[in-house]
């Protein structure tokens, strides 16, 4: 199947099988809302897709560039606030303009932060992301007249969604919002996969593998880490725009340190270094958190135990399970 004499991409085995599965999943998700019609599951999967996109953006940073960010959800928050404020104050109908403004603003904020971040490495990088994240959280929480402080953004209109000229319905209607999220998430997923497999993606992986050696083969490590950071923040910005359109609300608690660690959990649950693993991790994490918290008041105890169990006994996460099993088979 794989002829080493020709010039192959090494990971090209089982290509048709993988494409078939991905298309199957995409069509399945697409048809789901029409079949089941139960609004709770539609909005739950919608939320899973949004957080999956955010987890994927963190995986670009952690799984591919080897940089740990504690509060990647801060950039979801910034973009959501800008989109919300744009819709409330500037023009309530122009959905695409608002999303565009949100993402651009997030990137503008992420650039100087990224420039400072890449000057550090390892644990210092992670703790610096905590510092910046908490700074944004506190600013958003204190700037009462603009962001509504602890109550979050109030008075979000429900603009109409027009996708490639086709009017889906307003963001208030869960079905339209579901399809909008699905399409945007799919586009981001395929583009990110493309970028990860591009020469630029290869440089990120080299930096993850061995930052020192990377600079000794001529890679300007700081510049590429910054580009990786910007890509991750851009994707987080997109998930932020989707978040506020879907939920109609954004508050400081979504940008808190604990929500940040939650996103990190999703990536690890899904398995590092696999983009669609992040979506699986997000789905599992959201289900566990909601399911356990309805079961008992003391849901924190069980969530803690689940986390400890996963890290001790299932290090590579659910998607990573494959490699785990393969290794066993080899004996």
């Amino acid at each position, binding site marked *: 199947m*794989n002829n*080493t004499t020709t*010039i*192959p*991409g*090494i990971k090209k085995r089982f290509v048709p099988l993988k494409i078939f599965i991905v298309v199957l999943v995409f069509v399945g998700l697409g048809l789901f809302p029409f079949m089941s019609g139960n609004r709770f599951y539609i909005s739950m999967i919608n939320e899973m897709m949004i957080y999956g996109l955010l987890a994927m953006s963190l995986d670009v940073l952690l799984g591919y560039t080897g940089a740990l960010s504690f509060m990647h959800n801060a950039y979801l928050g910034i973009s959501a606030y800008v989109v919300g404020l744009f819709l409330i104050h500037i023009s309530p109908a122009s959905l695409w303009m608002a999303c565009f403004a949100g993402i651009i603003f997030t990137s503008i904020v992420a650039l100087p932060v990224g420039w400072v971040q890449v000057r550090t490495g390892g644990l210092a990088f992670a703790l610096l992301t905590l510092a910046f994240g908490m700074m944004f959280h506190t600013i958003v929480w204190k700037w009462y007249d603009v962001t509504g402080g602890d109550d979050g953004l109030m008075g979000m209109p429900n603009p109409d969604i027009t996708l490639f000229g086709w009017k889906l319905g307003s963001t208030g209607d869960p079905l339209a919002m579901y399809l909008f999220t699905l399409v945007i998430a799919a586009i981001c997923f395929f583009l990110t996969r*493309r*970028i990860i*497999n*591009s*020469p*630029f*993606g*290869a*440089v990120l*992986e*080299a930096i993850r*593998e*061995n930052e*020192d*050696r990377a*600079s*000794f*083969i*001529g*890679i*300007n*490590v700081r510049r*590429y880490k910054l580009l990786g950071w910007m890509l991750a923040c851009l994707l987080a910005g997109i998930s932020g725009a989707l978040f506020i359109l879907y939920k109609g609300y954004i508050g400081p608690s979504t940008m808190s340190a604990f929500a940040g660690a939650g996103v990190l959990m999703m990536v690890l649950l899904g398995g590092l270094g696999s983009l669609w693993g992040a979506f699986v991790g997000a789905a599992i994490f959201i289900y566990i958190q909601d399911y356990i918290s309805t079961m008992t008041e003391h849901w924190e105890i069980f969530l803690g135990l689940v986390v400890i169990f996963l890290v001790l006994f299932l290090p590579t996460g659910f998607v990573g399970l494959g490699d785990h099993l393969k290794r066993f088979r080899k004996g």
Partner: protein
Amino acid sequence: MAELLYTENLCRRFGGVMATNKVCFSVNDHGLTSIIGPNGAGKTTFINIVTGKIPASSGKIFFKGNDITNKPTHDLVKMGICRTFQINSIFEDLSVFENLRIAKQAKNGGSLRIFSSKQSLRTVTEETWELLEHLGLKDLAIRPAKNLAYGDQRVLEVAIAMAGNPKILFLDEPTAGMSPTETKHISKLIKELSKKICVVLVEHDMDMIMSISDKITVLQYGSTIAEGTPEEIRNNQQVREAYLGKEE
């Protein structure tokens, strides 16, 4: 033969210790220069300064006439100053093929392409295969670097440095931990290479040094105590004392 690279009174101080003490070192655009000296003589520190891993305390380094002291590592590599490491520093989880491909890509450029596939960089992939063939690593191409035998990993270490088409290549104890046959293979390779580009070798294996070096510099306590052809160095009294200690 124009001087490719030379240093003027290069110093590096760690607290009170002068790890590199006013070293004046120069190499031409090709040929094999070796740096030897007892452990702790400052050989690796010297290489670390020239290749930009650690900044120099004082003194200057010139490459093709222009001053490159304390320039960032990636710029030095782009200019053609590459090095290997004493302790293996390779991209473990990546395949051998990818290890060299990424080094080639970093050299030939194209890293900023975010939408084209890796294979679209034709020349990079072709040159990688040539290098693999040249070094006899072809059949290990798809295996992750960390699963290689230690000797092969050392060869890969040198290969990654060579992938950057260096003008000057610093080899920091490439044969450390290699079997005699592998050492012979690598020595032949290095000798062949030194015909085309300038190679600076840091080694403890005296037979290898004496057999393939064009010029030898001996370092002790951070400063140069002798310089010359293998013959001159073998008979040099000071060098013998530095290694064997003064006869009572």
